[in-house]
């Protein structure tokens, strides 16, 4: 266990959902101010330190130059700041746990910098921080993530349950999240969390989170783990009421299905980077929504667990080394992320939203998914895609009040 994981476990034992923002500022003073505000919010919180995009892509010279010139960066350049500066940001936070978020397909320098500053939690994964956001070969990402994990003694969260932000059917999200956690464990990480991003239908999402927990119990029985839910990551409602409702629904979903932690989104999401105040509001609103529901063991089984299990087993059969297995799986199309344009993704899978608002497969390529789960007559034109991408935002923005 780690400071971060301990805090999540402690809140869970008290029946409280841990809520967490996205937040990163270049200035150490502003970063510290943001963390203090999150710590002092009326909610069970953990903090976030998000790095800037130069640091994300490994261009630490550009980040240093920007710091020297006083240019605005879109996050905290943890590799470029001296570890003593980062320790100063965290000084006196009284053990308040902070996770470093980065989005990097080569996180080695970031892992080194966060450990040097006394931090113990971060996130990502060899698939989830390569395929959707990078042109870097998957092979390189697997190699770099292997090396980063080998020397890491903290808590590591998979980003695999958030692939593409939207329109990825839950069975594949659950499978990739589990596979990245198995990869972390193989490389010596002893405390993990598994992500899942809220999609288009609350019942389908609850089923997916139950599936994620069942597979974590099976494949990660000898390490500490919990599930983290992300508030919807696709096109976001533009109205304050719509945005708040979607975030509150994610909090209720997390509690109902047995997740321990939630990454929130704010009312500013559709418009700009949120202020600290907007983040605190989103955290407090989510915590209040979470307190109104309880864990529910029951859920409708429409086959998400079976689908995810088949995918995970098919991949792990390919090699005893999960990194090697993931590479072979993408090469053969046994994993195929719909609408992902990365050269190492087969690109034959497609999805749509059905009449009940659930995500469905239109085609599955070579993935080991039952043909009965595929509806190839689903709409596939540009107008339908645009409608699917905007569906959740539209529903929440037009809800009568």
């Amino acid at each position, binding site marked *: 266990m780690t400071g971060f994981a301990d805090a999540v476990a402690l809140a869970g034992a008290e029946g409280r959902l841990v809520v967490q923002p996205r937040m990163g500022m270049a200035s150490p003073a502003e970063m510290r101010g943001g963390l203090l505000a999150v710590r002092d919010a009326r909610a069970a919180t953990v903090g976030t330190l998000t790095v800037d995009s130069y640091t994300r892509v490994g261009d630490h010279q550009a980040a240093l130059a920007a710091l020297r010139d006083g240019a605005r960066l879109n996050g905290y350049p943890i590799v470029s700041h001296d570890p003593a500066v980062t320790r100063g940001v965290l000084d006196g936070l009284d053990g308040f746990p902070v996770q470093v978020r980065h989005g990097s397909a080569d996180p080695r320098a970031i892992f080194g910098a966060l450990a040097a500053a006394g931090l113990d939690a971060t996130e990502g994964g060899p698939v989830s921080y390569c395929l959707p956001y*990078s042109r870097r070969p998957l092979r390189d990402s697997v190699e770099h993530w292997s090396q980063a994990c080998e020397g890491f003694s903290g808590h590591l969260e998979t980003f695999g349950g958030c692939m593409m932000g939207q329109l990825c059917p839950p069975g594949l999200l659950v499978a990739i999240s589990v596979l990245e956690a198995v990869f972390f464990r193989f490389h010596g990480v002893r405390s993990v969390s598994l992500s899942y991003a809220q999609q288009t239908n609350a019942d389908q999402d609850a089923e997916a989170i139950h599936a994620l927990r069942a597979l974590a119990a099976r494949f990660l029985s000898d390490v500490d783990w919990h599930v983290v839910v992300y508030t919807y990551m696709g096109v976001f409602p533009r109205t304050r009421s719509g945005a708040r409702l979607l975030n509150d629904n994610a909090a209720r979903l997390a509690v109902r299905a047995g997740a321990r932690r939630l990454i929130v989104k704010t009312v500013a999401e559709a418009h700009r980077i949120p202020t600290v105040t907007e983040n605190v509001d989103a955290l407090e609103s989510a915590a209040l929504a979470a307190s109104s529901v309880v864990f529910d063991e029951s859920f409708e089984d429409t086959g998400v667990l079976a689908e995810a299990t088949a995918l995970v087993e098919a991949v792990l059969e390919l090699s005893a080394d999960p990194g090697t297995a993931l590479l072979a799986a993408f090469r053969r199309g046994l994993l195929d992320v719909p609408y*992902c*344009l990365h050269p190492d993704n087969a690109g034959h899978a497609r999805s749509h939203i059905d009449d009940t608002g659930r995500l469905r497969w239109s085609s599955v390529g070579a993935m080991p998914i039952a043909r009965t789960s595929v509806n190839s007559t689903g709409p*596939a034109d540009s107008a339908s895609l645009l409608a699917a991408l905007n569906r959740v935002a539209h529903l929440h923005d037009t809800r009568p009040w």
Partner: protein
Amino acid sequence: MKNLVLLSGTASDSHTWNLVYLQLLLEESGYRVVNLGACVPPALFADECEAERPDLVVLSSVNGHGYRDGARALAELQTRPGLAGIPVVIGGKLGTGGPEPDRADALRAAGFAEVFDDDTAITRFQEFIASPVLCRTAGTVS
């Protein structure tokens, strides 16, 4: 008649839903599409244009760096011989604070055949790809 479109993101932009959508839109208008995906550096962009010899090049960006990254991509393309006849267009959210007409004009002056950066972008783009100049080579929607 190959009616081929080369579709690409810009160097610093990791977004891809815009590219997925535009590919469908172009295919529905009868084009074949080579989609290069996200984060395409200028040299790779120009290499692919040389290799594919498309009838139209479409750059799309939504991360706010499009005015700058688009100019860099076109400048690299203009260093390669034999590509001058291929129309290149760009669209999306090209700046961090909404459309900037002066910067759009600068892109046109630099050699972009069209810039789609405002509220009418998709409508104008649809009209553009249906225009006679391009229809000469494009097939029809079945």
